[in-house]
């Protein structure tokens, strides 16, 4: 299994503060971090750089989280297409979660994020992917 320092997380959120907060949590937990401020930028990053997992917000300018996830799931490159994606959103309704999974996310976390929850969820999903 990969150690935390080998796991590179892409944080996608249009709020600077949120991105910084998540980056702070993950960096102090030992992960490697990349950041993007919307789906479009995130897609560019995924295509140019290798990541192990993506944390994505839903409401973002230019390209929102749902469109972003759908687009990722349509990529030709299997490595990108199958990347685990966690939605991090303020919406807590079952309908929102459903929309997320429908688009193709692997996990759904409601803001504000509990640091441990975030770290463990990432580890679970990356482990899961490695195990397949």
């Amino acid at each position, binding site marked *: 299994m990969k150690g935390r320092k080998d796991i590179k997380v892409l944080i996608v959120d*249009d*709020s*600077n*503060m949120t991105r*910084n907060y998540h*980056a*702070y*949590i993950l*960096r*102090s*937990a*030992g992960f490697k971090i990349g950041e993007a*401020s*919307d789906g479009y*930028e995130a897609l560019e990053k995924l295509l140019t750089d290798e990541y192990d997992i993506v944390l994505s917000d839903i*409401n973002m*300018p*230019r390209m929102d989280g749902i469109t972003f996830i759908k687009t990722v799931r349509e990529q030709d490159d299997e490595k990108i297409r199958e990347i685990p994606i966690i939605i991090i959103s*303020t919406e807590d309704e*079952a*309908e929102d*979660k*459903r929309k997320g*999974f*429908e688009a*193709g996310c*692997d*996990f*759904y*976390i409601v*803001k*504000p994020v*509990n*640091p*441990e*929850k975030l*770290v*463990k*969820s990432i*580890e*679970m999903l990356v482990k*899961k992917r490695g*195990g397949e």
Partner: protein
Amino acid sequence: MEITITKDDKSLALGFVEESLELLNDIEERILEMEANYDIETVNDIFRAVHTIKGTSSFLSLTPIKNLSHNLEFLLDDLRKGKRELTQEIVDVLLKGSDILRSLILEVKNSVESSEEDVILNLEIDESIIEEIKEVREKEGGTSEKSEQVKVEKAEDKIIKTEENLDTTNLKNAEIPSDMFVQYKDEAKEHLDNIENHLLTLENNPDNQDSINEVFRSLHSLKGNSGLLLSLIEQESYEAKLLSFIKDVAHGGESLLQRVRDGKLKLSSEIISLLFRALDYMNLIFDRIIQRENRESVPLPDNLIRELSKKEFKEEKETKEEQKSSGYDPVAEAMDQFLDVSEKLLNEWKNKQEYTKKDIDTFKRIIKLLETSTMDIDDEELKKSIQTVKETIEFLEKGKFNLKDGIATGILEDKIAFFKKFKEENLGREFKESGVKKIGEILVEKGKIDEKDLKEALEEQKKQIERAEKKEREFKMPLSSTQIESIRVRMDKLDKLMNDIGELIISKNSFFHIYTKLVQANVPDIAKEFKEKMIMKIGRLAEDLQNTIVQIRMIPVKTVFQKFPRMVRDLALKNGKKIRLVMEGEDTELDKTVIEKISDPLVHIVRNSCDHGIETPEERRKNNKEETGTILLKAEKKGNNVIIMIIDDGRGMDIEKIKRKAVEKGLISEEEAEKLSKREAINLIFLPGFSTADKVTEVSGRGVGMDVVKTNITKLKGSIEIETEKGVGTTIIIKLPLTLAITKGLSFRLGTEYYIVPLENVEEIIKIKEDDIRFFKDRRIVNIRGEVIELLDLKKNYDIAEENIKSSLNEDNELNIIILKNMGIKFGLIVDELEEELDMVVKPLPPYLSSIPGIGGSTILGDGRVAIVLEPSEMISLLNS
């Protein structure tokens, strides 16, 4: 204190700076709002903002910022809990505190931006502000101090059941050698901060060996230093007691961590909170040591020490936790998500009696999540159930099942019920309750807040996030399809771009000349093509570019305006006046350079209005005016200019007094003073060395007079005008160009030379008969529609040609006159031939030319000729020469 910000932390630091400055603006605004209209919501808002700054600054170990905001937070907390009423003093302290915070944050900003590498900050805070806050909090019978004590006791009472208080009265004062003491103080503070920072890290990541070692090292040093100091002073003294408390607690913490380092204990949340408790205790004692006069009783550390050295204390609980894997469990979370989504889908299917391909995919996805998250759980029935759900969905997909007979939904419902039960029995409760505590729980544990507060705070936090996100969405909505994120661009790069675009615009002017030549050369086809392909296309592109770059550099005047409420408030207080400040058009945008340079002049003018303009309440009452004076600060866009007006309803300017003053100061002679028009007299205040104030007050009349204001505004290619009515008020109108780099001008010929005047100064262009000119001494004067206007013949002033004025006459014996207006004074310029209106980028002249009065710079015309750009504000001086 020295703080290192590493390269990696820089973006975090800059984010902190940006956000904190925004918060501070908000804080200041709200403090003033609170002063005007006390509302507990406002206090809460300020509290939250200060709290955020505290939180983020501690991320970055910016201890001085954290400490100050922490203290402000205490004061605000007193307010919102109703322990204290809002007084003038509190408002002042809060404002002062926020000012200091701002300067500290700006210091961080400057250092971080100064270099690409790691930077070492030397943040110093004037401790007096913290003293002031404490003083304010201790006023009125020291209720807050008492409650503070209660709080501390509450925090400790779990462990210090048999609370004994240290009797301070019998203890002798001991002299701690002062240099040793200073050294001890500095180091201890550092260690305490270090412990806090690393404990925070450990809270998120208990396995971080570096942090464990850091906390250990700091505890060890604290113990050692305290012991050393202790050996130097009288053992029975109050200080000695306190020192020994720190020493003992540090020792307890150190031994506990040693057990962790030896692998005998796992660093659980309980141990971390215990260490936090020890830290809080040491901080408390440390504060007491520093405030040497403050002989308040302190709780004894005995129970805390007992707790720290407890043998049995963790082991059994530890193993239990380990079995269940400590802390939060994503399996339960995954199960929740599966249940949420599957129930949702199932309900829909039952209602509609149909499903889509998408639904099936979604279902498969959540099954996969369930399957993989429960991979490590060894439970036959669980595994079987997951398999059943999987097959059911596959059957549905292949059409082997349908929804009508209800078999599939029946199976799914059955299994969902099983998962629910499984979760409750095996996952739910334990995982929810065990494990690493949320920060809120720790706070409750430490007695910092009670559970009710915590719930309220969490609710509030959620609401706040929702509000913020909603706001953000609203804000972004109209822009959603364009680029929203901002990037930092260095100003000089923008200047360069602006300059280049300016040059492009000028080159564009030359196209017309080429076009004319082509037409003259009788090649109409080429001329037409050139016009369409070059002039139209490139012309439009160039204009687009110009508009865009102008837009990029625009920022709202709000950035300047927002400092005024505070300033006016302070000045009003100081002068014993009542002043209301009204601002309009804060969203009007101006070029960034203009904004930066207009700030000081505006400050000066507003200060003048407060100091000299608005009268004291008594004086206003006497004159049948409302006691509260009003200053209106207004910005609006008019064409290519932005007009900023500062209007007050004060006493207005006394023309006679201004004249007298100017004569007294030897700026003009008494004769000259007689001849001056009202407007000319008012403009005297723009002369260097003029001040109308009888007494020099703290803020205005410091020698930086209106002349500097005028110079600055002129530099910005703007103009300033004053209208005043004695007893009624003063209006100052500042006219600024939207942007600096590209201006419009009117070119004309004078002899063989070409000149340009800024278009914004051009009032009108007229033709007059030579006979209409009257001579008054040396001056040429003309009456235009009843208005007497002096004419300026530049040929004379600049010795341009030998030709006399007659050469300027056209066939009808008429003269071309450009009427210019600057600072309210109109004058006419006699020109030979008017040329065209054009865009120009004004280049400065070499020093030996720029000293000639009336000349502002030069520019290149479309056909490559050089033209002199005239400066109307300087030309006025030519009139009188």
